[in-house]
């Protein structure tokens, strides 16, 4: 990104001033190195989002931001419905409520190393992963409706988890005001066979070791200690969410002129929050959020079943579950006033600070866990929301490493077999149905996740608590 016309407000805070119809400025949180590597398209897209009606504060981009569709991936934007604000399908993305869940195992590195290969095989056998995979749970129409309104709570009520899991999930595992009637028959049909599946692409399940602690106090609140083994799951709302995103993106693009929206680019497709289309999308999107929460809950159950065969005493309680592709109604203080806003996070994680009433009391001293997935080889991070988070980007932080290289280029650069062998030499057991998929997800195709979380901390968006290193990776 060309930095010459940006205002550097702090070492990791860059402002793009209002110009050419922008209602608010755009703000990018990143180090100078990350800024220079960042695609110019991020700037263009962040500026375009700032031109949408009803936007409040600024159009924000996180340190892992990259070129998305309409909104940058790593983008955060809040809209006031009463001020003509909009909701955007592109501002949420196709994988609605894609997110990360992290489980404690109560085990140590040595426990896993003793069974690393057979445990990797067992997880790969029991967790449906990859293109075309199907789950063992098939939903009829009534069950589909209940799942779309019940989320993880629905899954727990069916025995796939415990009530205590729900306390460690955003919205306690069930977002209200979902409208299954706004979800098309095709979207529901796509989901019928996909409950409890991981998906493909950058989705994964990893067994990880706590490799480093940065904030001992927060780590104690989260129950993290060096050498602890965790399980991290990254996936979303599967075919149902993809179909909802596709259908509403097209409807919003086609109907924008009728809503008086003159968009600088049709990829910014959106609808006024108070319009029928806007409300239908919000109802369908919330149903997809519940679908994603139910899906991660079922995957959690499957993981617990696999671990119970090797470690009968292991319970695998939840550390936390975050969604990083959402639009949620939240209360935020803007220029001294409390306002109800529709906060879009597209590739960004909510990061409520210490004491926030949404958090389970046990987590309040530290703030919300922010789970940041890295690539197969580099590891992941647990961060914590800061008291200052709300004043920066509506309590948001980064979500991952972000790609540094296209899939097309990665395919040309690496061979899947070589990537697997290299990771095996480093002690990481990888299982995947696709060698080409492994090449496309090679660690070198991603940005340095350490640089992303360092910038996140330096900007004040969240603080580092722990680094997790992979031991086993099940790649979809």
């Amino acid at each position, binding site marked *: 990104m060309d930095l010459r016309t940006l205002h550097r407000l702090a070492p990791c805070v860059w402002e793009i001033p209002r110009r050419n119809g922008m209602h608010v400025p755009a703000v990018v949180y990143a180090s100078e190195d990350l800024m220079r590597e960042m695609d110019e398209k991020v700037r263009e897209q962040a500026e375009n989002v700032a031109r949408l009606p009803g936007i409040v504060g600024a159009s924000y981009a996180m340190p892992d931001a990259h070129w998305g*569709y309409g909104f940058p991936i790593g983008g955060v934007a809040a809209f006031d419905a009463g001020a003509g604000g909009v909701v955007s399908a592109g501002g949420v993305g196709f994988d609605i409520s894609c997110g990360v869940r992290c489980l404690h195992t109560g085990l140590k590195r040595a426990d896993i190393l003793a069974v690393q290969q057979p445990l990797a095989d067992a997880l790969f056998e029991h967790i449906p992963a990859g293109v075309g995979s199907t789950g063992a749970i098939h939903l009829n129409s009534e069950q589909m409706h209940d799942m779309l309104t019940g989320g993880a709570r629905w899954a727990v009520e069916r025995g796939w988890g415990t009530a205590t899991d729900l306390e460690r999930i955003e919205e306690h595992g069930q977002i209200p005001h979902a409208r299954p009637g706004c979800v098309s028959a095709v979207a529901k049909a796509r989901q019928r066979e996909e409950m409890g599946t991981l998906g493909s692409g950058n989705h994964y399940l990893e067994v990880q070791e706590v490799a480093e602690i940065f904030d001992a106090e927060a780590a104690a609140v989260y129950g993290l200690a060096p050498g602890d083994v965790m399980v991290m799951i990254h996936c979303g709302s599967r075919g149902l969410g993809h179909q909802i*995103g*596709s259908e509403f993106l097209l409807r919003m693009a086609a109907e924008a002129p009728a809503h008086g929206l003159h968009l600088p680019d049709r990829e910014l497709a959106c609808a006024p929050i108070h319009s029928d289309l806007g409300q239908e999308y919000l109802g369908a999107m919330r149903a997809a959020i519940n679908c994603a929460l139910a899906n991660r809950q079922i995957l959690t159950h499957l993981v617990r079943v696999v671990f119970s065969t090797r470690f009968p005493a292991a319970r695998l309680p939840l550390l936390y579950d975050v969604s990083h592709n959402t639009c949620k109604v939240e209360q935020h203080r803007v220029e001294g006033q409390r306002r109800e806003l529709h906060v879009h996070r597209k590739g960004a994680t909510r990061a409520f600070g210490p004491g926030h009433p949404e958090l389970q009391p046990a987590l309040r001293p530290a703030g919300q866990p922010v789970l940041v997935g890295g690539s197969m080889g580099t590891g992941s991070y647990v961060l914590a929301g800061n008291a200052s988070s709300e004043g920066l980007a509506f309590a948001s932080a980064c979500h991952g490493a972000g790609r540094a290289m296209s899939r097309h280029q990665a395919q040309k650069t690496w061979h899947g077999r070589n990537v697997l062998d290299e990771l095996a030499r480093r002690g990481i057991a990888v299982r995947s149905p*696709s060698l080409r998929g492994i090449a496309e997800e090679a660690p070198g195709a991603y940005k340095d996740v350490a640089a992303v979380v360092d910038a996140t901390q330096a900007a004040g968006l969240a603080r580092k608590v722990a680094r997790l290193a992979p031991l086993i990776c099940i790649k979809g």
Partner: protein
Amino acid sequence: MHSHWEHFDHGADIGVRGFGPTEAAAFEQAALALTAVVADPEAVRAVDRVDFDCEAPDAELLLVHWLNAVISQMALHRMLFARYQVQIHGHRLTAHALGETLCAPRHGPAVEVKGATVTALRVARLPGGWVAQTVVDV
């Protein structure tokens, strides 16, 4: 212009681009590029047929509708398609695709496609033919 397809780079996702002597041929090639995001189209047998019927306000949105319809059918039937036959009348498309049920060991599918976006979307007449392209989210 002979019919052919290619991929183009887009950050985290991938662009599909079809060329052909007609608009319909370019749409067919864009769909083949879509198949190739998942697996090698040459490895897919053309044994089962699925029919399509789409309509949109303009040619570009018609391409997105068409690719989304293919993506939905791939997911619903767990299929890959080797060949596409498209007819376009105004902004309405009818088509059929020939393919087979996904076989992971034989096809080695890399990644599933979530949906077609309107990013880098273009349907245009070129000297000697047509181009149809957009970015798909994977």
